[in-house]
């Protein structure tokens, strides 16, 4: 501490307060008459209410009191509280599935059961097991076994028929019985099982059943010419069945039935338009055109004035809801409603993703990875009610409270306290709903932008792509490294290293892919292996944070040229992530930029940048202007 409590005249106790979307941070410092700053303590608490609204007061006071307690100062000594000029930013997420796979006339079964029976290819006419007795000898048949048949009975019936001369070349079962039946057959044949809607398999049709050896995939039915050979197709027909072959690629087992006009189609679902207004243009883009087309349109409409989605679609609903929420937040009783023009969608991020969905017309609950587009949108208003927050804070604390600076500028200011950083510097604040960037040039000019899409979108992508249906689990996958529990006493981490334990791990994680949360390993309920989950997690982060980092930096970089930047400092909650900072640094490396996670004041890590930036800005001012005044 460089000053005494009742230090020399002119020493002032100030608190910088940053009200963010999710956290409110405070920084307590003494500012000497010469502008010197002694930092006394910081605090962090959850933001109360939507940022930029009077509900923030409670959280702000909590953070101020926390910083005072840590700094060992009483509230009565505070000269000025400095608040950031925070405008409300609300973000929303939506997802539209844009493709649909449809099987008609039950032409194929491609669900890939874990345990098919037998091996090889069998081609014959489909016959119900009850009708096997009347099957013509010498005519190859594919036996169809409905639900309710015991495996012993089914095997016995087939063996009896075979003994009587029937030529059973393959079987299709409703239950999970393929290995059981095959093991009991006098003459083993390929068997596909777990076909829940087996009664829909058309009887009396030519069908092919193929099962590959363990660890292999089918070769004939996934090959258009293989299908052509099996079913004696002409070139036109071959062209028609090629989607079937494609759909079966990678499976260990499959059934194809030759029906008059059976087909597998991959249909695009029209899900409406996105209307983007900006740069004097109004652009329309079909959402089902995919992320690339949407983002290209967004780029052409920069700066975006507003966006609308088609009513009745997820995207339309989401955009409307984001807008409505903002309107609700901004409306003050007794005052005229906020003009809609002030509540406009200012950025949209589209990301291609996929959603596991059950195939229409499938017989065995086949799941196809359908294409989808995830959208994040952001609305911010120019209207801030921070002055009201400042008044309330002042009243609650009994000290003056002023708006001390604009968020982005203050963030850069604070980031400059990171050791090793100098102007020109850009900061990237990696938050929950939006990714923010600000640039401070060598000359001291500052520009700032917010772009849509951040941590919450990553969670949503992980949730839907892994079909978890549980945001808490998805959040865990996002935040913590993975491991596979290989025994009760060891796990293999995602980097391949093994860790041993003295005490046995809890039974519910045994043999599972887990996330290593601070509370211990938590299982990820998925059939996918660790590598798949890891790849998907990193890809989700890349598509959101790396893409947005580049997008945001381009918007603040001189002439849109990222190479013109020298230092990039990562801030915000997601800058604490175990891999996002590295991914962004890797992406920026080719541009010759120094990029890393901030360490505000040399102690705070990526936290407290705005709050300490407010204090720094204040300290720089009074030297020239004397009394506390808002920094512009």
């Amino acid at each position, binding site marked *: 501490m460089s000053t005494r409590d009742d230090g020399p005249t002119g020493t002032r106790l100030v608190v910088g307060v940053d009200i963010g979307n999710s956290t409110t941070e405070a920084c307590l410092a003494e500012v000497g008459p010469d502008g010197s700053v002694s930092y006394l303590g910081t605090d962090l608490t959850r933001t109360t209410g939507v940022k930029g609204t009077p509900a923030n007061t409670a959280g702000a006071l909590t953070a101020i009191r926390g910083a005072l307690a840590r700094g060992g100062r009483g509230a009565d000594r505070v000269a000025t509280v400095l608040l950031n000029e925070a405008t409300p930013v609300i973000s929303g997420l939506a997802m539209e599935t844009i493709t649909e796979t449809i099987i008609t006339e039950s032409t194929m079964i491609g669900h890939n059961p*874990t*345990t098919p029976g037998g091996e090889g290819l069998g081609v014959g006419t489909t016959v119900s097991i009850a009708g096997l007795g009347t099957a013509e000898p010498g005519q190859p048949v594919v036996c169809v076994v409905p*639900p*309710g*048949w*015991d*495996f*012993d*009975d089914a*095997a*016995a019936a087939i*063996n009896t028929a075979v003994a009587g001369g029937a030529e059973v070349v393959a079987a299709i079962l409703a*239950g*999970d*019985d*393929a*290995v*059981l039946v095959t*093991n*009991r057959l006098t003459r083993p044949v390929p068997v596909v099982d777990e076909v829940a809607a087996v009664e829909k398999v058309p009887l009396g049709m030519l069908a092919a059943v193929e099962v590959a050896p363990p660890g292999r995939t089918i070769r004939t039915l996934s090959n258009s010419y293989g299908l052509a050979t099996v079913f004696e197709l002409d070139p036109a027909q071959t062209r028609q069945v090629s989607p079937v072959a494609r759909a079966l690629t990678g499976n260990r087992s499959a059934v194809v039935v030759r029906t008059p006009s059976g087909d597998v189609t991959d249909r695009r679902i029209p899900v409406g338009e996105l209307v983007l207004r900006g740069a004097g243009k109004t652009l329309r883009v079909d959402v089902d055109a995919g992320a690339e087309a949407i983002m290209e349109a967004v780029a052409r409409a920069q700066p975006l004035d507003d966006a609308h989605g088609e009513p009745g679609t997820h995207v339309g609903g989401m955009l409307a809801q984001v807008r409505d929420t903002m309107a609700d937040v901004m409306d003050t009783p007794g005052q005229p409603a906020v003009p809609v023009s002030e509540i406009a969608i200012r950025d949209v991020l589209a990301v291609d993703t996929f959603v596991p969905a059950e195939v229409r017309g499938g017989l065995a609950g086949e799941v196809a990875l359908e294409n989808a587009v995830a959208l994040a949108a952001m609305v911010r208003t120019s209207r801030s009610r921070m002055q009201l927050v400042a008044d309330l804070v002042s009243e609650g604390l009994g000290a003056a409270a002023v708006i001390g600076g604009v968020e982005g500028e203050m963030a850069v200011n604070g980031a400059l306290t990171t050791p090793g950083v100098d102007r020109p510097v850009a900061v990237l604040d990696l938050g929950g709903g939006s990714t923010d960037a600000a640039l401070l040039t060598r000359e001291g000019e500052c520009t700032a932008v917010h772009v849509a899409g951040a941590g919450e979108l990553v969670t949503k992508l992980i949730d839907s792509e892994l079909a978890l249906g549980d945001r808490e689990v998805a959040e865990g996958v996002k935040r913590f490294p993975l491991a596979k529990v*290989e*025994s*009760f*006493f060891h796990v293999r981490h995602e980097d391949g290293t093994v860790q041993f334990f003295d005490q*046995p791990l809890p*039974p519910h994680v*045994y*043999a*599972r*892919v887990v996330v290593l949360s601070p509370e211990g390993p938590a*299982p990820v*309920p998925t*059939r996918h292996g660790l590598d798949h989950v890891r790849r998907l997690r990193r890809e989700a982060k890349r598509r959101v944070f790396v893409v947005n980092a580049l997008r945001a930096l381009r918007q603040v970089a001189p002439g849109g040229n990222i190479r013109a930047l020298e230092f990039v400092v990562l801030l915000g909650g997601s800058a604490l992530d175990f891999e996002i900072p590295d991914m962004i640094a890797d992406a920026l490396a080719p541009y010759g930029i120094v990029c890393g996670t901030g360490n505000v004041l040399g102690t705070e890590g990526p936290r407290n940048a705005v709050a300490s930036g407010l204090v720094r800005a204040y300290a720089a001012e009074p030297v020239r202007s004397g009394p506390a005044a808002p920094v512009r």
Partner: protein
Amino acid sequence: MTTPTTTAPPERTVTLREIGPARRGTRPDEVVVALSPAFAGHFSKTIVDVPHAEVLRQLMAGIEEQGVTARLIRVRDTADLAAISHIAAKMSGSGISVGILSRGTTMIHQKDLARLSNLELFPQSPLLDAPVFRMIGSNAAQYAKGESPQPVPTRNDQMARPRWQAKAALLHLKEFECIEADRGPVEVEAVFGPGTAG
């Protein structure tokens, strides 16, 4: 509810033939199924009348379908499910076992776990039917293969208490009566009676 046995009305039976003292297995692809003292002996069906023959067939089928081998033992000196299952897990080449009491209560165990712990427990014997036993066998086999099966969904019924609580206690006491102290576990072979073809 439909069960895989609906088309086979003639009830299958099972007798257990003792082969000799149970031994620790070495095959990593086996699951040891441990039967309680009165299973398929003093008793022939579970608390809700699922025949023990069917219980055993389905458990073994679930294991076989996964390409894993089932080995049966009978534990004679205890009727405590955790103890039965744990003894079996220690004898299992894969370290995985399924333990089952006469009334149907079932547990999947693993050799490195504490005796009173388990991988999956199915405590509500009145709610266990043939398809559930199949899934239990299948899951045990998947654990043996080092896979991560989704736990078999457990069911609950608030009114099971008035209907079954006392009978469960009675069956438990009867099972206790069949305990033969100081007799170690024996390896057994299941010989299924009429109705089977395999």
